[in-house]
């Protein structure tokens, strides 16, 4: 069974630039999550989708972060403009029951 795919794996940008991350969940998983994990901390949920509807985005900084899940499958997370404190690993997960995580995208903002 193919796992959760994410791209790119690494990204380095300057502050105030924009960046986008892509996630392809496991086939058949209706629920998709985006997490931010800062070094030394546990993952922090940014947004949760059920099919293509948003279930929880209470911790998403909506002034700069946006996410969409078109057709209830793939999803993109965008940051515009990026700040230094956005440097983190961005994890995508999908679930039917337990969550399956992708390898993450390591973002460095300089």
């Amino acid at each position, binding site marked *: 069974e193919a796992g*959760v795919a994410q791209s790119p794996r690494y990204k380095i940008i300057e502050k105030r630039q924009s960046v986008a991350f892509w996630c392809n969940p496991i086939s058949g998983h209706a629920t998709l999550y985006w997490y931010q994990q800062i070094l030394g901390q*546990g993952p922090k949920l940014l947004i949760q989708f*059920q099919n293509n509807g948003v*279930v929880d985005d209470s911790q998403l900084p909506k002034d700069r972060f946006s996410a969409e899940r078109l057709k209830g499958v793939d999803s993109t997370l965008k940051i515009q403009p990026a700040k230094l404190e956005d440097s983190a690993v961005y*994890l995508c997960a999908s679930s039917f029951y337990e*969550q*399956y*995580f992708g*390898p993450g995208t390591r973002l460095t903002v300089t």
Partner: protein
Amino acid sequence: LAKTTQPISMDSYEGQEVNITCSHNNIATNDYITWYQQFPSQGPRFIIQGYKTKVTNEVASLFIPADRKSSTLSLPRVSLSDTAVYYCLVGGPEGSGNTPLVFGKGTRLSVIA
């Protein structure tokens, strides 16, 4: 959301049984207890989930007392490859669409040869 408290770190020798305890004093009636494992540079991986008493799978056991205010993840005969961060979460259950699970800082387990 129910808050969890775990030790920051633990050390163990290979071959020993490791027990990681998690406190969740304000767990709600509908909440489940779920444990994830995370290796460096990887996403977390589901280990086990339970509601009460004892749950066992091929990887670990989860012990939950009657008051459900704490739980213990038991890893039998650990090896070097079990070195990872272990997260205790309450909520869900997974897949229910209920209370989302919140990751804390986890317990960093170091297994020594």
